[in-house]
């Protein structure tokens, strides 16, 4: 027997069409509403507000009461228009960020695929060790690891010292503050995010499919291209998303390792917020960035929904 209060609640809930199972998804729902949706609405709101250079906070209100008691809603889309037109800075930064993220994703994929494949085909006892090694860097701070790269790459760093010590080069190779260093940093930092989804996909593959392919006359390379690669596409896409999306907005690595000319959108955001103190424009950049990133996710989910039937069955 339920206590009366609980029963009353249950009846109420039932009238609204709620069942017990709704409680389970209520937790992530509430989480998303509190920590994603509400902040996002605030950012959208700021992006549509007029800039106010003196004041705290540095943006004007959206709503105003007119003298005759009307509620006036003033939407300022100038911030968005500025992004496209007046100043090529934002467009360039956007394109540059997308390029950096895309190149990093490709390199991550090229490095991670063989690693994930190797782990997936290793004996079970080895597999756990190898996976642990992949995850191990997460146990140290991300910043410490990026600084470690500075120690490796700078002019009197480890790599240059070793190369000069061996007499291979006479002068240090300039690697710090270049695109190269930035790519190294990004690829290194995001590699596990590529390896893990790829591994979890490849590990489920049925080896007899490859045997069947070779039995039908496919060389091992062709068997890989025709069987393993298409079947691993969900893993490839998931890993690419996990690398590409955060890499677009990456701020720390370009700042620490990249050159001053590498103007990524994360840096522009930072500058708008803290140097120019133009919160509305920074918010507009952030909203646009989100839209650019949400699109590929939606495409991915579509793809998954279409393929899930075929791939789920082995």
């Amino acid at each position, binding site marked *: 027997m339920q206590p009366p209060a609980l029963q009353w609640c249950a009846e109420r809930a039932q009238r609204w069409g709620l069942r017990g199972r709704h409680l389970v998804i209520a937790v992530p729902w509430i989480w998303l509403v509190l920590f994603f949706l509400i902040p996002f609405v605030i950012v959208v709101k700021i992006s549509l507000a007029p800039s106010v250079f003196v004041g705290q906070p540095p943006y004007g209100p959206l709503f105003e009461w007119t003298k005759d008691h009307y509620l006036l809603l003033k939407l300022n889309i100038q911030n968005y228009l500025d992004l496209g037109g007046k100043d090529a800075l934002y467009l360039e930064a956007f394109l540059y960020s997308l390029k950096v993220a895309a190149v990093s994703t490709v390199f991550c994929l090229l490095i991670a695929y063989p690693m994930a494949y190797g782990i997936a085909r290793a004996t079970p006892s080895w597999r756990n060790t190898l996976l642990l090694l992949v995850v191990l860097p997460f146990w140290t701070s991300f910043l410490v690891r990026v600084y470690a790269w500075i120690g490796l790459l700078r002019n009197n760093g480890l790599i240059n010292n070793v190369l000069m010590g061996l007499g291979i080069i006479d002068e240090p190779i300039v690697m710090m503050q270049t695109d190269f260093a930035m790519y190294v940093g990004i690829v290194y930092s995001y590699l596990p995010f590529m390896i893990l989804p790829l591994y979890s996909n490849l590990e489920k593959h*049925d080896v007899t499919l490859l045997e069947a392919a*070779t039995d039908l006359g496919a060389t091992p390379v062709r068997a890989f291209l025709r069987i393993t690669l298409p079947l691993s596409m969900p893993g490839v896409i998931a890993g690419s998303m996990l690398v590409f999306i955060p890499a677009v907005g990456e701020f720390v690595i370009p700042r620490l390792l990249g050159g001053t000319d590498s103007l990524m959108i994360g840096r522009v955001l930072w500058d708008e917020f803290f140097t120019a103190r133009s919160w509305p424009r920074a918010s507009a950049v952030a909203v646009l960035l989100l839209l650019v990133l949400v699109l590929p996710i939606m495409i991915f989910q579509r793809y998954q929904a279409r393929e899930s039937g075929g791939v789920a069955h082995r």
Partner: protein
Amino acid sequence: MNVQTGPSKSEDRKAPWTDPRAQAYVRIDDVSKKFGDFTAVDDVTLSIYRGEIFCLLGGSGCGKTTLLRMLAGFETPTEGRIYIDGQDMAGVPPYKRPVNMMFQSYALFPHMTVEQNVAFGLKQEGTPRDEIATRVTEMIALVKLQGFEKRKPHQLSGGQRQRVALARSLIKRPKLLLLDEPLGALDKKLREHTQFELVNIQEKLGVTFVVVTHDQEEAMTLATRIGVMNQGRIVQVGTPHDIYEFPSTRFVAEFIGNVNMFEGRVVEDEPDHVLIDSPELGASIYVGHGISTAPDAIVWVAVRPEKMILSREPPNEKLNAAQGTIREIAYMGDMSVYLVQLNTGKTLRITQPNIYRHADRPLTWDERVWASWHESSAVVVTE
């Protein structure tokens, strides 16, 4: 069990293994395969002839699948050699062998349609596109899958998948097809139907089949010859009839079909008959043929359940007979199975055909009966 009317035993079928001049199509010479300390296949020598359906029969872990995988090229023999069509297969990778395999799990490519699955082998050969199309259509018609060309494997039933797998493995017109438990995943009705279909296709295309199975009934109906395997060794090779009626060892007798086994001691060993004293039966056993064994040797006498006679009255001969009590009766429709406990305590399994719809006084539980058999029905095995 009706073992005589398998579909493969059409009258015009020759028996190349009886012809000393016949060339073996597949020759397995002293092949062993070791995985670490474990010997999966132990010194197997075997000849398989063109057009045969050869069944490797044995329990799980007997090495039959390993042997098949060595033929396909997925495993390399630790010792010995394999010749297919006279060519030594050592070092020949699977994709260069004139062999195709139908996998136990079918191993259909989940991301390809039925058509693409079937066409896969031809595409690897670089066959022209229009030839691929016609051959795929032909093959799909052969396995009766018209209308399913565009489906993916997960949209098919088990029986349909089995046929896709068969079509895919036959599309390259291999001379030798390896089948790993081809009917294992099908239900009983479909199995029987598919068995006959397999044999029809095999005869139509003239392919040599090597089939691995643990199901003796499947082996009986499909095979021209059966190789019974146990612990990595081939224990007996012969036609289904030979294997069933003249098992060479206790293992074969007990593995194929049901059998009543009596341990006994040879007391009289003549060229035309043997007399065996069996305390287990509680009587002497008279076997109507000579055996080559030492006197006083311990032997086993195997009698099939359907070759035993059940009666209320004692039989004329005192040999090959014993009295007991019916403990269980299982009515199977076409026949009934009786479990009869002898006075010695041993339980016999006896099947009797249900000839009459109404018997006057059917045998019933706890009745005292005599079990007996004809002197030619028993087989003596020594190990």
